[in-house]
């Protein structure tokens, strides 16, 4: 019988990988989740704790998928604390996916915003010239650098890390690097996922040079299927119309980069 993607399927965590002191990757077997498009997400149930939207991470092994989570609030900390052998629920996949262009590509990821970028790397052509920018606060928080290099071993590529405090890679904000790269090079596509301000600056930098850019937005979500309305940004629903939006579309959105909604649905400034 075909699985109802809106119903929760229970999976067992088979492996837990410590990426940084606050970030872990949880690997599980699931054919459907292993084959999702880059940028798609799942609603992940941590029994007894909460349910939250998570971008679906790749796994080296076929038939497997993963979630990479940073411990932050009660829900993400609950997921972070899941041990091997414990069960979680997944429903989805939900959302649209990146429109993967050919040629010179720039991928920008901050923190767990790198997750959809890693899956995107599995969709690039060997002829594409790919630059990956990884932004982190400090050396401790850098992850997926070697994974990005491995995924791109057959491509002309660069993986550049920048840390806010300069403890690793280049010093400064990743958006300053974006600004520099898009002003010096031609790109056929720019893709960004991370903190909203980072995405906003990246979109502005690309838009002002008429470069195709897409951002994967994050909002508080309850249903994931376009019923509850919690994730609206202007008139867009992140779960249903996104999570990926074209820069041109975002430039018309009054809330992108400025507001998000709290649990009660009240607009708050970033």
């Amino acid at each position, binding site marked *: 019988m075909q699985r109802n993607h809106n119903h929760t399927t229970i999976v067992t965590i088979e492996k837990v990988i410590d990426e940084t002191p606050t970030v872990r990757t949880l690997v599980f077997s699931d054919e459907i989740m292993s084959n999702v498009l880059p940028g798609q997400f799942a609603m992940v149930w941590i029994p*007894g704790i909460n349910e939250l939207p998570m971008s679906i991470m790749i796994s080296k092994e076929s038939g497997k998928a993963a979630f990479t989570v940073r411990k932050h609030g009660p829900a993400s900390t609950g997921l972070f604390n899941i041990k091997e052998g414990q069960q979680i629920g997944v429903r989805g996949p939900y959302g649209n996916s990146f429109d993967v262009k050919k040629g010179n590509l720039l991928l920008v990821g901050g923190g767990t915003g790198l997750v959809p970028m890693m899956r995107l790397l599995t969709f690039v052509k060997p002829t594409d010239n790919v630059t990956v920018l990884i932004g982190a606060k400090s050396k401790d928080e850098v992850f997926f650098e070697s994974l990005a290099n491995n995924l791109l071993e057959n491509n002309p590529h660069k993986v550049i890390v920048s840390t806010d405090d300069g403890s690793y890679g280049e010093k400064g904000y990743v958006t300053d690097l974006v600004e520099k790269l898009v002003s010096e090079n031609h790109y056929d596509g720019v893709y960004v996922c991370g903190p909203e301000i980072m995405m906003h600056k990246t979109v502005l930098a690309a838009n002002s040079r008429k470069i195709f850019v897409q951002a994967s937005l994050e909002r508080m979500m309850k249903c994931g299927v376009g019923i509850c309305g919690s994730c609206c940004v202007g*008139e867009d629903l992140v779960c249903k119309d996104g999570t990926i939006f074209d820069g041109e579309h975002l430039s018309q959105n009054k809330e992108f980069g400025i507001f998000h909604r709290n649990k009660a649905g009240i607009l708050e400034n970033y």
Partner: protein
Amino acid sequence: MEPSITTSLGQIQLERPVMLASGILGISLDVFNRIHRSGAGAVVTKSLSTEPWDGYPNPTIFSVGGGGWMNAVGLSNPGAPNFAKMIKPNHDVPIIVSLVGSIPKDFELMIEQFENCKVTAYELNLSCPHVAKVGLEVGDDPELVKEIVTTAKNSTNVPIIAKVGLGTTHYLKTVGTAIESGIDAITAINTVRAMAIDVETQRPILSNKFGGLSGTPIKPIALRCVYEISSKYDIPIIGCGGISTWEDAVEFFLAGASAIQLGSAVGDNWINVFDDINKGILKYMQKKNYSTIKEMVGLAKKS
């Protein structure tokens, strides 16, 4: 002549008979505009309280299959004052403001907030099945229903609708009380108190354990209620519960509803569902030679 799908519920005039039900997507004016453009005749807001409410932790919504959905969102909403501010610039969208509260004063205070807003009607939520002290617990108390409806009616000239559901007091009694207190229309029904348990982890899925069942599985129940209300009382009825196709909508008209609301269908078919249903109703009217919705309201009772 082209049939018209405009409809009226007492003083409430609607360009189209299909509305967005309360609790669904009803959080920002931009989204309301989009849903209106998609074909909804009106949008009903999330139920608003006097203060902002966060609602329950997730999981709050999931599918139980077969077009059925389970939810216990917990009436999360920005509160009536914030909401009134947000919809103040609205001129184009017929907005029905849903209100939830425990005592008559709550409703009076909330209606006051909307004095300078364009509001098509208020819908009193007397039937949410998963939050204590409000909703169904209020609807189950005839004395409180009487006081709340009377207070709401005295607070505004805008029409007041009562949304009823299946509680411990017979809903027909609640409807009767609301009518005696001056209500202008009835929405029937709310979600039905229900639960789901995950067999693998052996625990209720909803964080609140109990929630409301909506969608296709409750359609025949909602239809029966509309038929019973229209058989017993002379009051405009809005049918709500599991409607996802034009055939469902027409069934509710034939049972006695003059308009319908839908919510779960948005989860399965997204917002194209409004226009699809409008078009289906129009075709049916052409085929049956009706020029107005009114001609078919309650027809199933003739036999």
